[in-house]
C-alpha cells in the first residue's frame, strides 16, 4: 500500500528516494522505539514477562524465516519446528564439545539447518501446495527420528543438556541478559528481511510467488529462488532453534512438536503474510494467547478435575484454531493489513481519502 509522505518531504538524491526512514521524526521515533525495545523490558519487567518476551522473540525469528518462504516466495513448509531442532542440536554440540563461541555456533546452527532445508526444498521444483506440505511433513518425521536415534550427539530419548550461552565476556545466564541478546538478534534478522524485500532477490521471490511461469519467462531462475527461499527460511529456523536450546538449557525431541509448525504457519497468516511486521504481530499474538491459556487452566481444572492433565493442550488447540478461523473470516489479509489501514487513516486525517 502506497503510504503518503508528509507535506514537504521530497527527494533530491536517489539515496533519499530509497530510504526507509525519511523524516527527522521517523528517525527520532525509530531510535526511541529501538531503545525502548532493547532497554525497557529488562528494567521494567520481572522474569516471567521477560521469559514470555524472549520466547516471543525466538518465535519472531522463526516466523520471519517462514514468512520469507511462504509470504514472499509462496512455498509452503511444515518443517519449521524440525529445522529448529537441527539448529538446536548443532549449536548445543558445537558449544559443548568444541567449545565454539556462542555467536559462531549460532551462525553454524543456522547454516546446518539451511543445508537440510535446501535438501527438503529440492522437491519444490516439481511439487506444489499440498504435496509440498506433505514432503516437508516427511522431513519433519525424518529429522525427529534422527534426533531420537542420534546416539551421543542427540542424547536420544534422554535429551541433551545445553551449556549456557556466553557472548565475549558476558554469560547470558539471566533473563535480562538473554532478553537483550534475543532482541538484538530479532532486530538484525528483521532488518535483513526488510531489506531483502527491497532488493532484486526480494522482487524475484515475489515474482515466483505471484506467477512462477511468468517469472520464468522474465528470466527469473525459479528453482534457484525457491531454493534460496528454503535456505533462508531454515536458516532463520536454525538460529531460532539454537536460541531456544541455550535458553531452555536442555533439549529433547519433544520440544519440537509437529503442531508448532502448524501454529507458526497459522499465526503467520493471522499476523499477515508478505510483510515484515506480520510475523511480529503473529508471534506476539500467539505467545500472548499461550499465556492466556496458561492463566485459564487452573480455573478450568478446578471446574473439571477429571481432565486436569489434558486441559492445557486441549484449550490451546481450541483457542488457537478459533483465532485462526476468526482471522480468516474477518481479516484474511492479517493484522498487518489492519495496521496499514490505521496508518493510512492517520495520514489522511482529517480527510477520509
Amino acid at each position, binding site marked *: 500500500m502506497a503510504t503518503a509522505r*508528509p507535506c*514537504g518531504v*521530497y527527494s533530491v538524491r536517489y539515496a533519499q528516494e530509497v530510504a526507509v526512514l525519511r523524516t527527522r521524526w521517523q528517525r527520532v521515533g525509530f531510535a526511541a522505539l529501538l531503545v525502548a525495545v532493547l532497554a525497557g523490558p529488562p528494567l521494567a519487567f520481572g522474569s516471567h514477562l521477560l521469559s514470555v518476551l524472549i520466547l516471543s522473540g525466538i518465535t519472531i525469528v522463526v516466523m520471519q524465516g517462514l514468512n520469507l518462504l511462504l509470504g514472499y516466495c509462496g512455498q509452503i513448509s511444515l518443517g519449521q519446528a524440525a529445522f529448529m531442532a537441527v539448529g538446536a542440536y548443532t549449536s548445543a554440540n558445537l558449544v559443548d564439545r568444541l567449545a565454539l563461541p556462542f555467536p559462531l555456533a549460532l551462525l553454524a546452527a543456522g547454516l546446518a539447518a539451511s543445508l537440510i532445508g535446501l535438501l527438503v526444498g529440492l522437491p519444490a521444483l516439481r511439487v506444489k501446495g499440498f504435496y509440498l506440505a506433505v514432503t516437508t511433513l516427511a522431513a519433519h518425521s525424518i529429522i525427529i527420528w534422527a534426533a531420537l536415534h542420534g546416539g551421543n550427539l542427540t542424547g536420544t530419548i534422554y535429551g541433551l543438556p545445553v551449556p549456557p550461552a556466553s557472548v565475549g565476556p558476558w554469560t547470558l545466564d539471566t533473563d535480562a541478559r538473554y532478553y537483550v541478546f534475543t532482541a538484538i538478534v530479532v532486530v538484525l534478522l528483521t532488518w535483513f528481511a526488510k531489506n531483502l524485500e527491497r532488493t532484486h532477490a526480494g522482487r524475484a521471490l515475489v515474482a515466483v510467488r505471484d506467477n512462477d511461469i511468468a517469472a520464468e519467462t522474465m528470466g527469473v531462475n525459479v528453482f534457484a529462488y525457491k531454493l534460496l527461499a528454503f535456505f533462508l527460511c531454515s536458516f532463520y529456523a536454525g538460529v531460532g532453534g539454537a536460541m531456544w536450546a541455550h535458553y531452555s538449557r536442555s533439549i529433547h525431541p519433544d520440544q519440537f512438536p509437529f503442531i508448532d509448525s502448524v501454529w507458526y504457519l497459522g499465526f503467520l497468516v493471522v499476523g499477515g503474510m508478505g510483510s515484515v511486521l506480520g510475523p511480529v504481530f503473529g508471534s506476539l499474538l500467539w505467545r500472548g494467547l499461550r499465556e492466556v491459556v496458561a492463566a485459564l487452566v487452573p480455573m478450568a481444572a478446578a471446574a473439571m478435575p477429571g481432565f486436569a492433565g489434558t486441559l492445557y493442550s486441549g484449550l490451546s488447540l481450541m483457542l488457537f484454531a478459533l483465532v485462526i478461523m476468526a482471522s480468516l473470516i474477518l481479516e484474511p489479509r492479517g493484522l498487518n493489513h489492519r495496521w496499514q489501514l490505521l496508518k493510512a487513516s492517520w495520514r489522511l486525517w*482529517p*480527510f*477520509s*481519502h
Partner: protein
Amino acid sequence: MLRSRARPGAWEEKVREGRADDVAVFCYTSGTTGRPKAAMLSHRTLLAVARAWMEADGVAPFEDYVSYVAPAWVTEQFLGLALGLVAPLAVNFPESPETLPQDLREIGPARVFYGARLWENLAAQIEVRIAETAPWKRRVYRAALGAGRRVVEAAERGDRPSAGLRLAHAVADALVLRPLRDRVGLARLRSGYTAGAAIAPDTMRFFHAHGVRLKNIYGSTEAGMVAMHRDGHIRYETVGPAFPGCEIRIAEDGEILVRSPMVFAGYYNDPEATRARFRDGWYATGDAGRLGDDGHLVYWDRVSELLELPDGTRFSPQHIEVRLRFSPYVKDVMVVGGRPRPFVAALVVIDGDTVGKWAEQARIPYTTYVDLSQKPEVRALIHGEVERVNRALPVAARIRRVVVLHKEFDADEAELTRTRKLRRGSLEERYRELLDAVYGGADRVGVSAAVVYRDGRQGVVAADIFIDDMVDDVTAVRAVARER
C-alpha cells in the same frame, strides 16, 4: 560559451555593459480592454520590486516556491524571476496541471501564488473532502474550524483572543488544522498570494481560519507592485497597505494614482499611449478604489467597468460577482445592470460537480447539466446564495432577477479570457435575447442547448430556462412551490 572561450572575459564584458535602466523584459498587457501592448520593464524596476518584496514579507533565502503562473504574466516576472533570483527562492514547477495538488503536497512550498479561482477551488475541495468523511470527523473539524474562525474574527476586531480561546485554538491547530494543511500541501506555507480584489473576503477568512496566511496583492504590468497585505494586519476587504517605496493617491473621480520606482518605462513603440497613462508624474491605473484611514487600499473595479444605476448609485459588477462566486455551487456569474437598465440582474453558472453531488444527496434526479440547472430545488439553492450576497449590498445595488444558465461560460467561444475573466462585451452580445427577456419582465425564455449525453452522444435540446425574481427570499421560495 564557445565564443567566450575564444575571447576570454567577453561574457563579463557583456554583463558590465548592461545598465539598470535597460529593458529587462517586454510584458504584454492581458488585453481585457483591447489589443495587447508591450510594456517595457527595466532591470531597475524588477530589482526594486524584488527588494521591496523581501522587506515587506520577510522572504528568507532558498525558500521553496511553486510556480503556477505563466511567465508571460508580470506576476511571475516579479515573483518567480526577480524575487526568485534576488532572494533567491528555490523555484519549483508542477509536473502538469493535473498533478498540481500532489506536487504541491510533495514540495510543501513556503510561498505560492494562485489566482483567485484556484484558491476558491481549493476551498471547495476542502469542503467536499470534509463532507465525505464520517460524521464524527466532521464534528471535530467543525469545532476546530470554529476555534480558527473565532481567532480570525478577534483579530479582525483588533482584539486579543482570550486565554481560553488561544488554548482551544492551539489544540485545534495541533489536532486538526495542521494535519489538514499538511494534506493539502500548505503545511510549510509562509505566504499564499492572490492578486487584485478578485478573491472574496469569505474565501480569505476561510483560509485564515485554517491557518493559511493568504495575502492579497495589488499591482499591474504598468504600475508594478502597489499594495500587499502584511502579516498581522490583514483586512479582508482590502488589498493591503502600500508596497514599500510606492506612493498611492486617489484622484477626484476615484481613480488610483501611483508613483514609485516600480512603475514601467513605457509601452514599446507607443509613446502616445504611454503619455496618456501619466498625470503630473503619477501613473493612472485606470482602477477605481479608496484609501482607508488605516492606510489600506480598497480596490473596486476598473473605472470603465463601474456602472451607474438610475438613482445615481455607482456599483461594481465584479465586486458582486466575486462575492457570489464564493459559493461552492457557483462556478461563474455575470452581473449586469446600470443605465439604462433599471435594476441589477445576475446570470449564474452552476458548478456541475458540486451541485450534482448536492442533488444526489438531496435525492433530486436529473439527467443533463441543462436539466440540473433548471430544477426548482437547484434554483432555490442558488437564490439562497444570491440572498446571502444581497444582504451585504446597498439596496439599490441588490440583484433583482436571477437566471441560472443552462451552460457554462466557455473560453473557446470567447466568453472568457484564457485566465477565466469574463469578456463582458461578447457575453452581452451572446445573451442579448436572454437579457432582453430579463428586463422585459418575462419569466422564462426558450433556448436550444448543445448537450453531451453520458454515452458520449451529442445532441441539441430545446429547453426553457427560468428567470426568477429576487424581491426577497420568501417570494422566491413561493415561486418554486408554485411550479411544483
